[in-house]
């Protein structure tokens, strides 16, 4: 969690320095992401939205390969999704919920023992695909966990403008359990997610988890939250900072100091590796469109190659 927080800050700084094109910070949501991700087993599959760097870290994704998506080198990230069972960065809000359900249906057809978890925010619960995904999951009893980080704000729109009903209760309409948890309590998040995943792996069907949390930063580095929310609203949530709460639970200053030092070193290393990583070449844009490029595409690639030679 400490590493996630520190990388998050570093990524925002890198954007300000012109090294990243944009970045959506997750500060305030570390407990929800890290706690749920540690409940996953190797064979499970996580489908992130665009703000799940904390989950990526727990899944072992190389952050250079992750952050190069925000450096503008490759949409979706450069990491191998199957090496970490962590899907590509999904920027289309809510549409990846269906992929998680399909993957879960496929895992069940293969005999079970695996679960999918999909991450999205409360804003995504207004998208039709999320409802279709929950309905499919209910009907097929797919081993899927819908993990909603209700961080209160979808850019400038508050949760009250997204839905007139509590999010966790939507599960009822699709025939499976839904629960609301304290998303800033990492142990509570872990326990609730572990239970939901275990039920899914055992054939008990899907679960919706609404983790109440707060986006302490901006929606992205292009956003200015002072235009739509008061500092007075943010302050009480700062007191609920998941890192402070965890540090209070650990109650060991030497240990936390040691963690902070370790984290600094890892972030320095990450920064160096990220900035020295090769940049994307124009010709790469023609890669991976088809298994074999059709003649027209091969001709266009050749045309571009000549322009750049």
């Amino acid at each position, binding site marked *: 969690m400490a590493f996630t927080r520190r990388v998050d800050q570093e990524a925002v700084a890198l954007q300000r320095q012109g090294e990243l094109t944009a970045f959506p910070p997750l500060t305030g949501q570390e407990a929800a992401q890290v706690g749920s991700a540690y409940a996953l087993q190797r064979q499970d599959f996580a489908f992130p939205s665009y703000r799940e760097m904390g989950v990526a870290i727990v899944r072992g994704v190389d952050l250079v390969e992750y952050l190069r998506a925000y450096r503008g080198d490759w949409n*979706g990230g450069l990491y191998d999704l199957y090496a970490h069972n962590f899907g590509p960065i999904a920027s289309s809000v809510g*549409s990846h919920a*269906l992929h998680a359900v399909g993957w879960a249906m496929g895992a069940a*057809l293969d005999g079970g023992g695996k679960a999918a978890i999909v991450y999205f925010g409360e804003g995504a619960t207004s998208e039709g695909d999320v409802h279709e995904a929950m309905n499919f999951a209910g009907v097929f009893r797919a081993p899927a966990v819908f993990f909603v980080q209700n961080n209160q704000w979808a850019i400038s729109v508050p949760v009250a403008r997204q839905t007139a009903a509590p999010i966790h209760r939507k599960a009822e309409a699709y025939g499976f359990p839904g629960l609301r948890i304290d998303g800033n309590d990492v142990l509570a998040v872990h326990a609730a997610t572990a239970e939901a995943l275990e039920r899914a792996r055992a054939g008990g069907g899907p679960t919706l988890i609404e983790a109440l949390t707060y986006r302490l930063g901006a929606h992205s580095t292009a956003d200015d939250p002072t235009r739509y929310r008061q500092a007075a609203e943010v302050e009480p949530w700062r007191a609920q900072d998941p890192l402070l709460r965890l540090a209070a639970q650990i109650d060991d200053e030497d240990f936390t100091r040691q963690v902070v030092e370790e984290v600094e070193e890892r972030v320095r290393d990450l920064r160096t590796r990220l900035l020295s990583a090769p940049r994307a070449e124009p010709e790469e844009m023609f890669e991976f469109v088809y298994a074999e490029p059709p003649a*027209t*595409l091969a001709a266009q690639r050749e045309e571009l190659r000549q322009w750049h030679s």
Partner: protein
Amino acid sequence: MAQLTLVQALNQALRHELREDPRTLVFGEDVGRLGGVFRVTDGLQEEFGERRVFDTPLAESAIVGSAIGLALAGWRPVCEIQFDGFSYPALDQVITNLAKYRGRTRGRAALPVTIRIPSGGGIGGPEHHGESPETYYAHTAGLKVVAPSGPAEGYQLLRAAIRDPDPVIFLEPKSRYWTKEEVDAAAAGRLGQARIVREGTHATLIAWGAMTARCLQAAEAAAEDGVELEVVDCRSLVPLDVDTLSASVRKTGRAVVVHEAPLTAGFGAEISARLMETIFRDLKAPVLRVTGYDIPYPAAAVEAAYLPDLDRILTAVQKVLDY
């Protein structure tokens, strides 16, 4: 070789793929017990069980979205969208995800998903049951777009589409569903090759799907007046076999493209542009298009006046001959 309708030929293709690859799945609305509203999946659930051939809730976006997830888990989904006009709720999944996933994952996740869509008009259907959506898909990089013209083509191309490593939009000409033809179940198809259906010398008619048969009828009528028309069935719009099209038009010097979809930005414009770019000097007349009009697909009572017919095709042929 058996005489089969297009419905039966497609059913055979699905059956053979389900038999040969245990990872192949068939799903969609009413495809299970009912066997599909056109009976293309008739008897498949009985033979392969509810695990591999199943009905879904009525939600097109979820059908395609879950197909993506199933493919990520190593399955080979063949999903049915019941009618052309109902394929649009799934368009976001197709454009945003299905077409882009190979790229987004740097080639690590291939999505061998086939989406079957009964397409086109001419069967007296209600609203949303007669549309030709090929352009939407052809304009989206990452997809292949296949449009068979009859039973033999349907069988071969569907098998090739299912085996293809890329997502394929498979547009079935519903007005041809009940046409019978000899089908060679041993013949393997290949995507991306056009087919000369009829040889001729005076002009080339270019079509796909149901309009291929109409062009053949037009060619037969023209032959009675001594005009020999060549007819080319594109079979696949993406990839498009430009070489076969241009070779034919280089020979005849004249071309008319015929499609059911509206004129403006229809796929005929793409073909016309390709011919102009590749064989401009061999053209003896501008490439003309005979298409649906630039209106929403009309009501059943007047659809015959909307669809390209022999008179409109032959008038266009006369124009390119007289040019």
